[in-house]
C-alpha cells in the first residue's frame, strides 16, 4: 500500500477514457479498461462509473515522452505506464506510454494486464515483491484471473471484501526456492543454462551467477501451457523438448520451433500414457529415458524409436532410492544427467545415481539445485 494508506473515501469511483491508442480498436480498449476495473470490483465493494466528459476520479489516457504531468515516458520498452495514488486532481489518473505497442493477446504489451496493474495503484496499491502478483513491478503475461493472494489481501485491507460476490480463486504465489520441502516439475539444460520448472514458474540458472532468476513460464513462452511435466535437451540436435500432458513443444534456444505442439505418442508411447513425469537425455549413449508412473522407457534418438523390451520398472532398475520413511521410490518428478551421474528427483529429495555402478551415490535436497 502507499504511505498513509491513501484510498478513495467512497465506493463509487468514476473514470473517463480521454483518448485512445491507434494500436487497438476503440471497443477493444473499452473492453480492456472495463475488464481491468472489474478485476478489482469483484473482490471489493468498489463500483466504477464511466464518464464521457468532465473530470473523473480516474482520468485514463495515452501519451508519449512528456505528456503533461512532468513525469515523462521513455520511448519504446522500459517504462510502460504509470498511475497516481487516490486523491484530488492528478490522483488516480492513469497514463499509458503510446510508444509501446498495445495488444489484447500474449504479444507485448497486453493492455488489460497493464491496466489492471495501474488501476491497482489508482486505488491505493503499491508494488508487490511476489513475482506471481499482479502488483509486481515487472511486466509478465499470464492468462486467467490476475490477482494473487497478496493482491487481494492488500486491496481488501483498504476497502474490505465484496459482500455479494463469491470468493474468487487467486493465482498461486511464487514458489520459495529454499523451502526445504520444495519439489519440482521438470529440469533441463538449455545451452549451458539450467531451467527448473515449478507450477507456473521456472528458475533460470546461469553457470556464472549464483542467483537463480524466477520467471513466469508464459511470460517467456506465452504459447506454452501454465504447467510443464518434463523437459530434456538433446545437445546434438540443439533442441529442448518440453512436455505437458499428451503434448510436446520444441525450443531452439528460447524460440519455439514451428510445427509444434505434437502428440507424445509419436515417440512410440501407447495411447494409455497420458503424461510424462520426467525425461533426460544420456549424452554418452544417445538414448533418452522417459519416466511415466512406475515405469521408464528408453528412446533411441538416432532411429527415432523406443528401444525394445520397455517399459521397465523404475524400482527394479534404479534400486536404492528410498524415501525418508524407508519406502522405495517408484516414481520420478524430474531427471537430469551430468558427468556419468543421473539425478532423479522425487518430492523434496534428489538421488545422485551412478550410471556405471548402477547405484545411488548421494541423496540431497531438491533445492540444492537452486544453490540453497
Amino acid at each position, binding site marked *: 500500500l502507499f504511505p498513509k494508506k491513501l484510498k478513495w473515501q467512497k465506493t463509487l469511483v468514476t473514470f473517463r477514457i480521454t483518448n485512445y491508442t491507434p494500436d487497438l480498436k476503440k471497443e477493444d480498449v473499452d473492453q480492456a479498461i472495463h475488464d481491468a476495473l472489474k478485476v478489482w470490483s469483484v473482490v471489493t465493494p468498489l463500483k466504477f462509473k464511466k464518464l464521457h466528459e468532465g473530470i473523473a476520479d480516474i482520468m485514463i489516457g495515452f501519451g508519449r515522452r512528456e505528456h503533461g504531468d512532468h513525469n515523462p515516458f521513455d520511448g519504446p520498452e522500459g*517504462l510502460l*505506464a*504509470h*498511475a497516481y*495514488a487516490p486523491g484530488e486532481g492528478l490522483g488516480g489518473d492513469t497514463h499509458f506510454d503510446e510508444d509501446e505497442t498495445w495488444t489484447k493477446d500474449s504479444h507485448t504489451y497486453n493492455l488489460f494486464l497493464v491496466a489492471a496493474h495501474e488501476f491497482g495503484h489508482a486505488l491505493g496499491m503499491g508494488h508487490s515483491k511476489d513475482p506471481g502478483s499482479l502488483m509486481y*513491478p515487472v511486466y509478465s503475461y499470464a492468462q486467467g484471473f490476475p490477482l494473487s493472494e497478496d493482491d487481494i489481501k492488500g486491496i481488501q485491507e483498504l476497502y474490505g471484501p465484496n459482500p455479494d460476490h463469491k470468493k474468487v480463486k487467486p493465482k498461486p504465489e511464487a514458489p520459495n526456492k529454499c523451502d526445504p520441502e520444495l519439489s519440482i516439475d521438470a529440469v533441463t539444460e538449455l545451452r549451458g543454462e539450467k531451467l527448473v520448472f515449478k507450477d507456473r514458474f521456472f528458475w533460470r540458472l546461469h553457470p556464472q*551467477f549464483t542467483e537463480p532468476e*524466477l520467471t513466469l513460464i508464459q511470460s517467456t513462452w506465452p504459447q506454452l501451457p501454465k504447467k510443464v511435466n518434463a523437459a530434456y535437451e538433446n545437445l546434438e540436435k540443439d533442441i529442448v523438448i518440453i512436455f505437458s500432458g499428451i503434448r510436446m513443444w520444441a525450443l531452439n534456444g528460447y524460440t519455439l520451433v514451428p510445427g509444434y505442439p505434437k502428440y507424445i505418442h509419436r515417440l512410440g508411447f501407447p495411447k494409455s500414457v497420458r503424461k510424462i513425469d520426467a525425461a533426460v537425455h544420456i549424452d554418452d549413449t544417445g538414448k533418452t529415458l522417459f519416466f511415466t508412473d512406475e515405469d521408464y522407457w528408453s528412446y533411441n534418438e538416432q532411429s527415432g524409436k523406443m528401444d525394445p523390451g520397455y517399459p521397465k520398472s523404475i524400482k527394479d532398475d534404479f534400486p536404492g532410492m528410498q524415501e525418508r520413511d524407508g519406502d522405495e521410490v517408484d516414481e520420478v518428478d524430474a531427471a537430469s544427467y551430468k558427468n556419468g551421474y543421473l539425478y532423479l528427483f522425487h518430492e523434496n529429495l534428489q538421488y545422485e545415481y551412478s550410471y556405471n555402478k548402477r547405484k545411488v551415490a548421494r541423496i540431497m535436497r531438491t533445492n540444492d539445485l537452486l544453490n540453497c
Partner: protein
Amino acid sequence: EPLPGNKTEKWLFAERYLRRYYGMQPGLLGTSKSSDVMTEKIRAMQSFYKLEVTGKLDHNTLQVMKKPRCGVPDVAEYN
C-alpha cells in the same frame, strides 16, 4: 558536458533507474558520497527483487533493471 569520472553507460542507466524507482536524489554529490548512496540504493533494489544483495551493479541486477515495467516507484513515497 563530459561524463563525471569514468561513469559508463550502464552506470548512468542504473542511476536513472534508481532515481526514478528508488528515490535516489538527483544532482551531483561528492564522488565518495554518491557511490555510497548508489550502493545503498542498489542493495534496496536487489533486496526487493530477491537478488543476491551485493550493492554491485552485477549482471543479474542490470538484467532486472532492463525489464519492461510500471513507472510507479518501488519504495519511495509517490506524490
